[in-house]
């Protein structure tokens, strides 16, 4: 309990200090609860998610950093490894391959990397996974781009 709190305070300070270092990621701590964080990440360039800003909810367990934070997308995203409805993310470092040396910042970086490199063989979004597995890159990209425009970009007008 105490260890996780100290560690999160440290990470908070780090985030405040290095705000400008990683413009792709914006980590915001909940005002009243340091175990609840929100992250805004920019869709990586040269992907269908480019130009979108995706919101993540991070819930940190009390055993952190021995246990990984629970991360899910709050913004809808069409991605083979993200559950379309719940926003759950299938990422090994959030499950079995977690290491206490990781931080919330590095988790966000890993999620950006996952957006750029989808893994269709362990899909949470079967439609997206099937498109990719059948080789319909164009179909996957146009679907993903459409949802990025619908959900992750500011509304026009």
């Amino acid at each position: 309990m105490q260890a996780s709190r100290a560690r999160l305070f440290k990470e908070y300070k780090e985030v405040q200090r290095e705000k400008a270092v990683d413009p792709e990621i914006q980590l915001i701590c909940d005002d009243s609860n340091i175990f609840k964080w929100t992250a805004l990440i920019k869709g990586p360039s040269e992907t269908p998610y480019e130009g979108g800003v995706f919101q993540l909810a991070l819930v940190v367990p009390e055993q952190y950093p021995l246990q990984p934070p629970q991360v899910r997308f709050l913004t809808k995203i069409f991605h083979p490894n993200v559950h379309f409805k719940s926003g759950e993310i299938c990422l090994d470092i959030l499950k079995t391959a977690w290491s206490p040396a990781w931080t919330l910042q590095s988790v966000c970086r890993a999620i950006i990397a996952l957006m750029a490199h989808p893994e269709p063989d362990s899909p949470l979004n079967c439609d997206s996974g099937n498109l990719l597995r059948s080789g319909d890159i164009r179909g996957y990209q146009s679907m993903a781009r459409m949802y990025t425009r619908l959900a992750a970009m500011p509304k026009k007008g």
Partner: protein
Amino acid sequence: MDSDSIANASVPASKDSSKEFVKKKRGNNRLAKLKQCKMDARREQWLSQVKNKGSKEESNGIVGCVSFSSTLSAICGRENRSLGSREVRSRGDEKEGGLGVHTANSESRVDNSLVSGVSGNQESRKSWSQSSSSSSSTSTSTSTSTSTSTSTSTSTSTSTSSSSWCCSRSASEEEEEDDVDGDDGCVDDWEAVADALTADNKQHQPNSEPLVEMDPALVDAAPSELVNKEAALGASEMEHCGEVKGSVENNRAWRLDDAFRPPCLPTLSKQYSFPLNSERCCAHGAVTWPCNGIISQPSPCPICCEDLDPTDYSFLPCLCGFRLCLFCYKRILEADGRCPGCRKYYDPQNVEMDANGGPPQYRLARSFSMSTRF
């Protein structure tokens, strides 16, 4: 807190009056503006400092920020600080006496002594580094000014005495700046200066504590000139207080460096060439990222963010070089038992533990550089 409130109340009024006085006295607009600007900056710095005590950078920055016209002299003063400190230390007895007398704090006394000290300084200004009389008067006056803060502060005897020393050092630096600024013999706003000085005492107090509490071995390991100088100052603090705070400090070579060593002489790293070199080689690139700088500076456990203690430093559970504190290691062993650095399972055979309490950094550094060289 008494002096705090007094200073707080008197700063704006005295500043204003002195400002007007200065303007009337000599119609030198530029100088007056400069002085006002300086005081404003100082006051703002101080106010912000009161708001968040303990921010080190600000108190460092004030020296550079305040001395508009006298940057050069300030730099000079910083270079020759060791020289000045030697002189002051040689008069340590007088100063101790002064401290004892003046602990009954009265604002007027502080002001008087300040004025006298500085006016004594005026006669021999621009040559403060050579004439010992001027520096001695400076030291006495500043010691009285700091004594108020000493009497009001409520920490232990060690830290107060050392902080007062630190303050007197910084205050004398301030005065030298003032000397250059008010070069035309104008002593009318010394009240404001005194206020600023007490403010500066407040600012420099947090600065002194990390110096004292720094682990001597770690300071030693850091090869940079700056740390060296700071450490030397820290050593002089110890000496001045007449305390033997851990015999380790007194054995260090840099204690001698403090006063007599010109900056052009070779640094410590050459004297202790072997262990330091290996440490540096280890710290600078051979090891993977979690270990960077662990040896050269006090660093926290990457898992729980508590500072590593010497036992933790001598503990290397995994060949990948990922260090962590023993508590976290135990917790990880109870959980999934994999090294956070490389995700391999911890192998009890590979755990390196320096059990005999020898110089752990030395041995670890060697084993490090050996293993990484392959």
